């Protein structure tokens, strides 16, 4: 998100989901929508089958969407900046870019041009393994399409240089005049149901709700007045920086609501050691998660079906969550627990109902200024929605970018933090499967889902499997510098040679024991998608 914010001025999906059907071409990279967002995948498939939309897939794995693609580019993991620059090289050199758009709506084009021209297709082929001719074809297809959309996800961002990847994607889209138009845009698909909302609400160490700067004096004064408290002046720590801070003794107490970092964070041993070192840990969740087991106090929370509120989806749509049933046992909704705790600590939080919280949000957060429960009854409203009369904004940057003009950030290729060597000859990538969600807290409690996907499976290419003497559905041992796990193996061409893929839903064989906690320097996002491992048949 930081990458998009730097390029455009705000970091969110620029276009609505429904726009995929209006695109002439879709460039899909670092995202496996049939497993992660099946309903969005379906809209893309319908666009392809019914409207003749052309699909370009750029992914090291042979994901299902490859079957619908016009062109499939299979780069080596961690080389995204290279092929992106390579495409721009072709587009600029052949004058396929949108000259008037670039002139009127963007800045810093010359710097981009200078950077991109270094990446000719033959050079790109050497680094990424993508045949030069394929790259040219993809560049032509994207640039010549009237309306072209780019969709990406964690395959782009979960790298030590994820912010660079995103900036590079933004460059490509702006270059072809695809930002701010129907059917186009730069569309990061958000994996968790309310990731967008959690960011919007300022559950971030460096910004206040609505991405309002913590260093802007007027903003700070506004919040201090509304909340009746002085605000802490310096930015806090990102989650990935919290673990080392705990181990260094700087953080002593922690309050975790609805997260399971012991399964979902990289380099788990490190996370677990940190959590165990805490003087005091409170976990608020619906199940006894791996993280909750380490807590001093566990608070039982209500599930999504047991409370009222709003979620904001990947396309910035604020939607009403309605309570269907009473919380089980003595569970309470999270907002109520926070109110109770706050009161006990001497600060009265006087909210009777979530709607009152949203009214406060609308007063303090300009992009949510027109969000009121009574307006959300049908399909919700897409922010920014500054006031009561505003209908919401399906497409961002229509007339101008949030920051005025779009900024080209020239980006250079950096090698992934950890690359294969003789000892750890394979690349490991992680992600989800269709039948589970995140750390499996919810989905692994559903009988049918668990019946289809009961255990963790490592996907490995047939060539590698043969080399290593691994049989289909036999046990394999995966080792990285940080740990080892044993799983079933599935031999499949979905994984390219030299790469294995493991989903992260399974606490009993947690792939994040292996992953690298190297971080993107700006977004503080970990490098889940690339780390070096050894793969051997399990003894």
């Amino acid at each position: 998100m930081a990458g998009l914010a730097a390029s455009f001025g705000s970091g969110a999906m620029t276009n609505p989901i429904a726009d995929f059907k209006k695109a002439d071409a879709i460039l899909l990279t670092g995202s496996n929508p049939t497993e992660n967002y099946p309903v969005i995948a379906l809209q893309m498939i319908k666009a392809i089958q019914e409207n003749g939309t052309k699909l370009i897939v750029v992914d090291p794995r042979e994901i299902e969407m490859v079957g619908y693609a016009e062109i499939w580019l299979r780069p080596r993991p961690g080389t995204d900046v290279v092929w992106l620059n390579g495409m721009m090289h072709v587009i600029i050199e052949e004058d396929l870019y949108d000259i008037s758009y670039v002139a009127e709506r963007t800045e810093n084009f010359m710097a981009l041009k200078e950077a991109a021209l270094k990446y000719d297709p033959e050079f790109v082929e050497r680094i990424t393994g993508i045949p030069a001719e394929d790259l040219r074809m993809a560049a032509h297809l994207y640039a010549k399409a009237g309306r072209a959309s780019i969709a990406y996800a964690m395959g782009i961002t979960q790298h030590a240089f994820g912010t660079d990847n995103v900036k590079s994607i933004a460059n490509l889209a702006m270059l072809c005049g695809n930002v701010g138009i129907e059917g186009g845009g730069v569309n990061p698909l958000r994996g968790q149901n309310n990731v967008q909302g959690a960011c919007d609400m300022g559950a971030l160490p460096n910004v206040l709700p609505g991405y309002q700067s913590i260093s802007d004096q007027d903003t700070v004064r506004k919040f201090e007045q509304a909340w009746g408290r002085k605000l802490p002046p310096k930015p806090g720590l990102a989650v990935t920086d919290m673990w080392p801070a705990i181990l260094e003794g700087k953080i002593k107490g922690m309050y975790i609501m609805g997260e399971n970092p012991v399964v979902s964070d990289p380099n788990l041993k490190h996370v677990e050691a940190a959590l165990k070192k805490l003087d005091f840990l409170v976990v608020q969740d619906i199940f006894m998660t791996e993280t909750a087991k380490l807590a001093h106090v566990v608070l039982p929370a209500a599930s999504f079906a047991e409370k009222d509120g709003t979620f904001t989806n990947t396309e910035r749509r604020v939607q009403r969550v309605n309570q269907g049933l009473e919380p089980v046992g003595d569970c309470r909704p999270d907002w109520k627990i926070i109110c109770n705790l706050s009161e006990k600590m001497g600060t009265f939080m006087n909210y009777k109902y979530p709607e009152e919280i949203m009214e406060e949000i609308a007063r303090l957060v300009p992009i949510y200024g027109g969000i009121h429960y009574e307006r959300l009854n049908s399909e919700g409203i897409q922010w920014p929605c500054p006031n009561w009369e505003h209908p919401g904004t399906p497409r961002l940057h229509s007339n101008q970018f949030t920051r005025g003009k779009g900024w080209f950030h020239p980006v250079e290729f950096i090698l992934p933090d950890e690359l294969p060597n003789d000892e750890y000859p394979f690349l490991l990538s992680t992600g989800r499967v269709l039948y589970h969600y995140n750390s499996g807290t919810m989905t692994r409690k559903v009988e049918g889902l668990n019946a289809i996907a009961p255990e963790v499976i490592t996907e490995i290419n047939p060539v590698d499997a043969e080399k290593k003497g691994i049989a289909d559905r036999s046990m394999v041992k995966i080792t990285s510098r940080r740990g080892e796990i044993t799983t079933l193996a599935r031999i499949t061409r979905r994984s390219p040679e030299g790469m294995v893929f493991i989903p992260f839903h399974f606490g009993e064989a947690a792939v994040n024991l292996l992953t690298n906690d190297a971080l993107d320097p700006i977004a503080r996002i970990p490098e889940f998608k690339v780390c070096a491992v050894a793969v051997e048949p399990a003894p």
Partner: protein
Amino acid sequence: MAKLEIKIDGQTVWVDSGTTILDAARTAGVSIPTFCYIPNKTIEHPCGICVVEVEGREELVPACSTAVEDGMVVASQSKRVIESRKQVLQRMLSQHYGDCIAPCSLTCPAHINIQGYLSLIARGEFIEALRLIKEKNPLPLSVGRVCPHFCETRCRRMLVDECLSINHLKRFVADFAIHHKDADVLPPPSSGHKVAVIGGGPAGLSAAYYLAHMGYEATIFEAMPQLGGMLRYGIPEFRLPRKIVDKEIENILRAGVQTRMGQRLGADYTIKSLKEDGFEAIFLGIGAWQNQQLGIEGEDLDGVLSGPEFLKNMATGRRPSIGPRVAVIGGIDTAVDTARACVRMDVDEVVVIYQRSMMEMPASHREVKEAEKEGVRFVFMTGISNITKGKGCLKLETVRMKLSEPDERGRRRPIPDPGSEETREIDTVIVATGQVPDISWMERPDEGVKPHVLPGGTIIASPQTFQTSEEGVFAGGDVVRGPRTVIQAITGGRKAAGAIHAYLTGTALPHPKRQLNFTKGKKFEDVDLHNFEDVPIRLGEKMPARAPERRTRDFDEIELGFTEETALRESKRCLECGCAALSKCKLREFCIEYEVKFPIAKMLKRRQYEIDRRHPFIIIDPNKCIFCQRCRNSCEYEALELEGANFDKDGLPKRISITINDKCVSCGACVDNCPTGALVKESVTIPVSASEIRKVKTVCTFCGCGCSITLNMKGDSIVEVTADPNEGPNFGNLCVKGRFGTGFVRHPDRLKTPLVRKGEYFWEVGWEEAISIVAQKFLEIKDKSGPDSLAGLSSAKCTNEENYLMQKFMRTVVGTNNVDHCARL
């Protein structure tokens, strides 16, 4: 584009050219039935039910595939159209095989959703199960102990091994609630309308309970010192303990029911006076308390007691004195109860004398068996001629009975066999042959309201409206039907409450709709045994009970109740006969709407296809398929293969095959499109009709797409998740997690109470304690090491409001910006 003008059923509408008649009708608000129609799909074998008449055309035309023409005049409800639709439905029915509603439920006098509550028990949702029971029966603690369980006599499990112990399971959940939160929701505030309920027995309690839940101020007038009626005064302690009755009544009164105790109709008030006191309706639930006389010589002698009177005295603590040799005369439950009470007293011999055979005995046969174990002797086919006084005892002259020649209706009555007289010496005779309502209150001169009665003494009330011959006076339970079971009285009370509501609000009672219930066979011998081929034999759980030699030493309860484990095991034996598609079945809906008559005799008797349970979420039952092809046409993944063969002249196939291939992503679109039970969700185990479902619109919790979903709720249970095809961003589409993944919400592993670690283990504590500990610890750390020594993780799974509060809490209450969430993960 120019609009075309057409007329549908007299209404004029303007639509675009190319619109089908079906869609045009929808814009006019005229609904034309269809099974097969999916917009923008060509249907290979149209179902044919959507036909309409178009002026100027000889043949009826299908509305779903006929485009409108300017000036078209359409009739969608003409006689011809309706006749044609009926024929389509008839044809479909002739191929349909299954049960709409489970036989247990159909047999239950209260029509309790038995399959539904068994499934909730099996899922561990005991309180939800109780809530479902209480929709029809507010006295489950008592009924769970004394019901003769009609339901179990029709349980199909009998065809596999043995029937389920349904009633024991009902008792289990009712007992469970005593120690946990009860299932009752608070009734709405009183509307101020007053209804008098005369009699605080099962019928009256039930009527008052449901009236209170409909917002009425219900007042029970009870002649006895305590509520409960026959439950308290007619059933002995060892079968139904007083403290259980007390608990039951406490639950009823919690609904806001008023009481006037010790008030006897005819002595303390009259119906007329109640009307004058402002009661807008009166419910008579006074039961049948008067013992029927034998009409023989010696009946009035000392030592001859009345059964009901005997039990009433036992219940009020005035234990009657009886001699060592006791004879109980009669074959009703009261006779057996009385005899069993006697064996618990200081006696040598208790014998029950009944003039017919065991088979004809109205008393519960199970109770007869238990009585025999306790030492009660039964003498059948024996009548009483007279009772005379002997030396320090009574002399009972008995006579053997034989059956008469059949009368004109084929009935054979017991008649004395001359010469078989015998005389027995007995110390106490207790008569319990039957009970009639006590209507002596009508004799009071100032009672101006006297409902008509039958010669037997029962009050006449309409079986639908429960109205007596008197305006505003309703009656139900034993006073109308004579002595019956508790559940029948409860049902009378509940239905009367509904009738009173209709009367007071001036609304019509819901028309007793003709129900079309498909069945695999009403009688056991009609049911195709192939249905149970795959069911492994697992015998039922036994009710733990105290041994006869121990239990006859006191009056304590005999049956001890199921444990949680036995209840779970027993409930899982349910075969789930009723159709899981009840709420979505268009076939049944249209058949009822078009009043299609389809005699049970013509229903299929044999299962044609095996039920396919291989898919993890979807059960395929081709026996219910009507070949509308919606499943195939709604599948976006070419995963559903539907084949028909041997088509008849009407275009219906004689052979069908439905297969889900490995392209399936389990999105469930086919199930939600299926208009019958041919495709059902494995997770839908509570059969409910569409009108019982509460729909809650919300947002899926599984990814950033934000699919709009509808929770189909029954009470506090999610029956299933569906999606509205007209609503974005998903327009009816969902993925496997969205449609099938909400089971976690009521998973038994959910955290239910705050936990605090003490050493290795967690201890359950209350909220106050937990919150205090957290607050104190946080403040301590903050004071000692500064606010930045605390950190908070918010959640991408929580709502905006919660994320907002979390960061506000960290920034203002704690005073740090150390707040983040796992967005990057």
